């Protein structure tokens, strides 16, 4: 099957106080039409930077896409002009952010915010836009009558629904959801995730779901990529990763989950801290924390890491590790 989205060897750097932050280091990902890919990793692993690179909304100052290609539906987004990207954003690819409180304009009614998006893109007539905005509200489970209300009149879960309605207003084919339910309570999270899943299936939207919650991935995604220090350390189908995790970091993540330790007193935590992205370890970025690390994992004197690249252990299941653990 032809991949709808394909990222090849993406490298993104930030410059900060004359230091270079290696945020994304040669990431390759692919996503089929109508499928959902989960990006899992800890704070600062580079998940959000990948999504922002796809949307081309990295800050102008300080951030730089060094190399790589991002193919969306047969077109390389990194070769697009800003004007061309303007048309792609919203209509072809849309992004939902973590915090619904800051994503909405407090001085505009929620309905007008949705119809504004529509008017900016494919809808010309104001009346038609308002009609469609009302439809969108109903689609995310908000009564049409609340079109005229302001964001502060909505609860957190409702606001996130409005944000999702805005993102979906122009029927994007790719939805990038950055921790869409992290700020919500668990029963509300269940409702919102449920709605996202239903809409995705109904509209046949491809989706990248960024999260640190493996439970959310298990319930929502078809395939998973685990990100550590700006690299994909393991990727595959959901079944590959949840049934046969192969990378020591992936295993560590599962071991850290209290729900996986029923009957056990201690959690199998990962020792140490994530590496400093301005000063990544040579070789495999995980070796200082890895219980299986040997000298080979530390890379050679030139800082290279022969052999530490994606290895396909079963068809479609890639692991960035020298060891068979």
């Amino acid at each position, binding site marked *: 099957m032809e991949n709808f989205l394909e990222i090849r060897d993406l490298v993104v750097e930030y410059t900060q106080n004359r230091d270079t932050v290696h945020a994304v280091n040669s990431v390759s990902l692919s996503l089929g039409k109508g499928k959902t890919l989960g990006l899992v990793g800890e704070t600062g692993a580079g998940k959000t930077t990948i999504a922002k690179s796809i949307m081309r909304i990295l800050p102008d100052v300080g951030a730089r896409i060094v190399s790589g290609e991002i193919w969306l539906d047969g077109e390389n987004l990194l070769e697009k002009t800003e004007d061309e990207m303007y048309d792609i954003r919203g209509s072809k690819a849309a992004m939902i952010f973590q915090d619904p409180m800051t994503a909405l304009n407090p001085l505009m009614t929620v309905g007008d915010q949705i119809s504004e998006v529509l008017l900016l893109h494919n809808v010309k007539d104001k009346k038609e836009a308002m009609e469609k905005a009302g439809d969108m509200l109903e689609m995310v489970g908000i009564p049409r009558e609340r079109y005229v209300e302001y964001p502060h009149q909505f609860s957190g879960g409702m606001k996130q629904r409005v944000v999702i309605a805005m993102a979906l207003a122009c029927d994007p084919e790719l939805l990038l959801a950055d921790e869409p339910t992290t700020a919500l309570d668990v029963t509300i999270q269940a409702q919102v995730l449920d709605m996202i899943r239903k809409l995705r299936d109904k509209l046949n939207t491809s989706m990248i779901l960024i999260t640190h919650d493996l439970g959310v991935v298990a319930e929502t995604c078809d395939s998973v990529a685990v990100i550590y220090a700006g690299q994909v350390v393991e990727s595959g189908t959901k079944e590959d990763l949840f049934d046969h995790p192969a990378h020591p970091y992936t295993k560590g993540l599962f071991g850290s989950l209290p729900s996986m330790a029923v009957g056990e007193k201690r*959690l199998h935590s990962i020792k140490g801290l*994530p590496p400093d992205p301005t000063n990544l370890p040579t070789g495999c970025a995980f070796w200082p924390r890895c219980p299986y690390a040997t000298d080979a994992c530390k890379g050679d004197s030139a800082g290279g890491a022969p052999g530490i690249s994606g290895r396909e252990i079963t068809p479609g299941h890639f692991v960035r590790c020298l060891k068979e653990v």
Partner: protein
Amino acid sequence: MADNTLLEIKHLKKYFRVPAGQNHAVDDVSFSIQRGETLGVVGESGCGKSTLGRTIIRLLEATDGQVLLNGQDITHVSGHKLREAREKLQIVFQDPYSSLNPRLRIESTIMEPLQHSGRFKNKAEMREEANRLMELVGIDERLRQSYPHELDGGRRQRVGIARALALNPDFIVCDEPVSALDVSIQAQVLNLLMDLQEKMGMAYMFVTHDLSVVRHISNNILVMYLGQAVEKAPTEELFEKSLHPYTKALLSAIPSVDIHRPMKRIELKGEITSPINPKPGCRFAARCPYASPQCEAPQTLEEVLPGHFVQCCRCKEINSL
């Protein structure tokens, strides 16, 4: 076993005055905590779980009700007695970014409670004790002179824990101590908290919205909804056989990492309502799939099974007990 009771909370109420009326943040909650026990308190944002913890340790003044520490009423004590009570009751906060004074070095932060306790003769003794505490919670000695902003979230949380331990408390309120941390760091801190309890034997009240964390660490669990305790039971019993409709929905909403278990989710209508000027009667009724007219009457927490308390008038009916 009454002599093993550390804290007894009786009909505790904490109301806040807000422009729209009275916010019943904690409304008539009663329970007790044994020495060395961990009580998990779960609920969604705004259910009053943090207020409950703060009211018990006297960071907030109770509106009504009693808190008994070792049989002594501490609800309204002041002066010397309050200071004594506070030494026994400590707290670890959710946000390791705001719970440390940004202008105090790590060592000063940990030494501060020692200075107020009067147990130490001089600075050198205090410094020695601070070193012992830092070692206990696993902070490297070379970080003594660092400022909080130089530490990562996990280490800051360890400093917060050391500060709470400094007074040798019998009871620590852990207010979402790991929810701001990444998964791998979260596991480190949870392990630390459990190790410390084993060594020092204090009781925890573990306030969180994360049910898998609470399951791992608690002996008993109290479920709160809009300021009231709706269910209290031993941990495994609560997870295996929850009786209150809200608890059932809450448990079913946790995203599971078990990809082969079919999802059976209890869908709740609407969202949590506000605890301002609530009507008498069950506060969950508006979202409850089992609501009926009898739910409009005031509800009480009753012992339905041994050690298993539920506040629901239709509990027996629903669960065919």
